[in-house]
C-alpha cells in the first residue's frame, strides 16, 4: 500500500514550502508528486483521481487544510484518502479539531525527512492493519 509510486498531492500556498515538502518526499523515494496552492485547487485535483496520499498545510487562502479535510471526508469518492496535515506549533490546539475531522496524522513544522517517513509509515501501517 505504501508504495513509492503512489501519487502524492502536496498542498501549500507558499511555493517554497511545497518545494521543501516535495524534496523531503523525494528523498524518501517518492517520485510521483503533484502540487496544489490551496484547498480548493487540491480538491479539484483530487477529483481527477489517482491520488494515494495528501500532505496538506493548514493555513491557506480560499480553502484551508481543515476545510479540505472535511470536504474530502464527506466525498464518497475520496473519503478514505489518507491525509497528513502539516501544522505549526501554535496550532496545537487546533489539531484536536483536525483529528475529529478525520485526519490520519499530523506533523509539526519544521520536520525532517525521518519524521515525515515515520508519520507516513505509521499511517499506512494502520490502514493496512484495518484492511
Amino acid at each position, binding site marked *: 500500500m505504501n508504495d513509492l509510486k503512489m501519487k502524492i498531492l502536496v498542498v501549500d*500556498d*507558499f*511555493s*517554497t*514550502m511545497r*518545494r*521543501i515538502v516535495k*524534496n523531503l518526499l523525494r528523498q524518501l523515494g517518492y517520485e510521483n508528486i503533484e502540487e*496544489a*496552492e490551496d484547498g*480548493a*485547487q487540491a*480538491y*479539484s*485535483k483530487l*477529483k*481527477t*483521481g489517482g491520488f494515494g496520499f495528501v500532505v496538506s*498545510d493548514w*493555513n*491557506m*487562502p480560499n480553502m484551508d487544510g481543515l476545510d479540505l479535510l472535511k470536504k474530502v*471526508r*464527506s*466525498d*464518497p*469518492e*475520496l*473519503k*478514505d484518502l*489518507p491525509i497528513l496535515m502539516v501544522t*505549526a506549533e*501554535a496550532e*496545537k*490546539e487546533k*489539531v*484536536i479539531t483536525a*483529528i*475529529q475531522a*478525520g*485526519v*490520519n*496524522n499530523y*506533523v*509539526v*513544522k*519544521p520536520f525532517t525527512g525521518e*519524521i515525515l517517513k*515515520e*508519520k507516513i509509515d*505509521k*499511517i499506512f501501517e*494502520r*490502514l493496512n*492493519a*484495518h*484492511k
Partner: protein
Amino acid sequence: MQDEMEEIIIEFITEAEESLDKIEPLFVELERKGEDKDMLNDIFRSMHTIKGAAGFLGFQLIVDVAHASENIMKKVRDGEIAMSRLLMDVLLRSVDMLRLLLRHLKEKDGVTENVSPLVKDLGNALAAAVSKTPETGHHEKTAGEAKLPESAAPVIEKPEIPVMKEVDLTQAHAANGEQHTVAASAPPKQKETLTAALSGEHNQAPEKTAPANGAVKPDTQPQATDDGEPKQEPKQNEMIQSAKDNIQKAQNLRVDVHRIDKVMDLAGEVVLVRNRLLNISNYFDFKYTGDPMTEVLMETVSFLDRVTSDMQLAVMKMRMQPIQKVLSKFPRLVRDISASVKKDVDLQIFGEGTEVDKSVIEHIGDPMTHILRNSIDHGLESSEERIAKGKPQQGKIVINTYQKGNQIVIEIADDGKGMDVNKLKSKAVEKGLMTEDEAQKMSDEAAVDIIFMPGFSTKEVATELSGRGVGMDVVKTNISLLNGYVEVSTVKDVGTTFKICIPLTLAIIQALMVEVDGAKYAIPLSPIEETLKVSRKEIDNITGQSVIVVRDKICPLFELNDLLNTGTTGSSNEDYKYLIVISMGDKRFCIAVDKLLGQEEVVIKTLAGLDTTSSNVLGATITGDGKVVFILDVAGMSRNLLGITKG
C-alpha cells in the same frame, strides 16, 4: 543537492519578500479603514507561512521575528485584542526587520541583526494590548473571557494536553505512545473520537473498494453525501468549472530571471540576424527580380520577419511585471513620512496593473520615493495653512500610472502650494547656480526645472527627509538611466505634478540610423520629435552657440561629431544639413547629421568599460549589414549639453 538547497533558499527569499510586499499596504489600509477580517487574516497567514518555511531552512532570526508578530496578529484576528497604533508600529518594524534579514540572506553578507529588542517590544506590545482589552469592552467575547480567566482557562487548555504530549512523543520517536496518551487524558467524548481517528477505524471502513468503483462509474445511482446534498450532477459541473479555473491558475511558472534574460539575449541575436537577412534578401530581390526562388526567399524572409517581431514582443512580456510591486511600498512610506512631518496626507494610487519591464521595477522605486518625499515635505502645506487657504485639511497625493504608446507614464501629483518660480530663481542665484541676468530671462517653465539642478534645495533648513544631500537632480539622473525623462508642472496653490515617462522596454528599441563623416550611428526614436532638412543659411550663431528656428522657437543645434569628439569637423560641404529635433521633457535641441538612413529595430548591447555618463553613447548594436554601430545616449546628451548651458 547543494544547488537544490541554494535554489530553495533563493525561492524562499523571493517568496517571502513578495509576501511582505503584499501585506505592507494592508497595514496602512487597516489603519485607515479599520479592522477587516480578511486583511487581518492575510497578514497573519503571511507571517505564519514565512515562519514555517524559515523554520525548515534554519533561519532562526526570521522565525523569531515572524513568530512574535504572528502571535499578535493571531490575537487581533481572533478579536481578542484590538489593533492599535502601537501594535501597528511595532508590527511594521518587524516587517522592516524581516526585509533586512532577507536582504542579508540574499546578499550572503553574513551580517546578523540583533532581533531581541524587537522581539521583546513585540512581546511587550502584545502584553500591553492584552491587559488593556477588558477595559475597552470593545470585543464582547474577549472581554467576557478575560473576566473569567480561572474558569475559562482549563476548558481551553484541556484538549491541548494530549496533543502536546503526543507531539513530544512523536518527536522523541516513541512509536506506540500516542494512543495511550490520548486515551489517558482526553475528556470522554474526545477520547472516543480520538482513539477511533488515530487507530484509523473511522476512516478506513471495510467497504473500502466501493467508493473507488463509484468513481469509475459516476452514473451509478446518485449518492447522498454526508452534508445532505443528494444531487451529484450540479456538483460535477461545479467541479469541472473549478478544474478549469485551476488550469488557468496552474499556468504560473516561477523562472529564474537569468534564464529569461538569456532568452531575451538570444531573441536579440535573432533580431539582428533577421535584420541582416532582410538586407540580403533585398539585394537578391533587386538583382534577381522575377526569379521564382527569389520570390520564395522574399516570402520566407517576410514570414521570419513577422515571427521574429512576435517573438520579441512575447519575450519582452515575460520580463514585464505589474508596477504594483513598486507602488505597494508607498502607502507605508507616505504614512511614515507624513507622520514625521505631522501632515495629514491621503495617498491615492491608480493603474497598479500597468506592466513595466523588470529593470524599471528595480530602478523606479528610488526616484519615485524621492519625489513623494519632496511632495509631502515641500509640496503640501501644513493642515493649519491649508485650512487658512480654504483647502481641505487633508493633503492629497495621487499616483497614476498608465501606458501611452511605447511609453510608461507615471504621474505623481500633489494638491499643495505649488512652486514659487521667483523664489526658485532667487534661490538659484543665491547659490551661484546662475546669474541674476540668466534668471531674469528664464521662462517660468524653465525655472521649474531648477529643482533638478545639482546642489539645489529650497528649504531654509534642510529637513531630515528631503534635504539629505541628495537632490532632485538624482531623480533626473536615475530616470535618464532608464532612457526616460521627467517633467514638472506646477500651479500656485493648486499643486505640483511630476510626470515620468519611460520607454516600455530597454533591450530592443526603435532607432533612427544616421550617418556623419561616413560613420553610422543609431539614435533612439522615442525622444525624436521630428527630422528636418535645412539649408546652412538657416543656421544662426548666438555667442558661439549654433541655433536654428524650429516652428517659431529657437532651438540650440549641435553637430554630432562635436558631441562625440570624433575629431572630424563635420566637413561635408553639402548645402543642406539634416537635423534631428530631440525633445526631452521640456528641453529641445537639434543634432545635425550628414544623412538620415532610415529606421531600424536595434538591440542594445552594453559596452564593457565604457563610461556611459560622459561618452554620450548608450551601447552598441549590430545592423542589418553586419556592422557594429554606436547607439547614442540622447538623455545623457540633454543632460550634458543643456545642464551646462543653463547653469
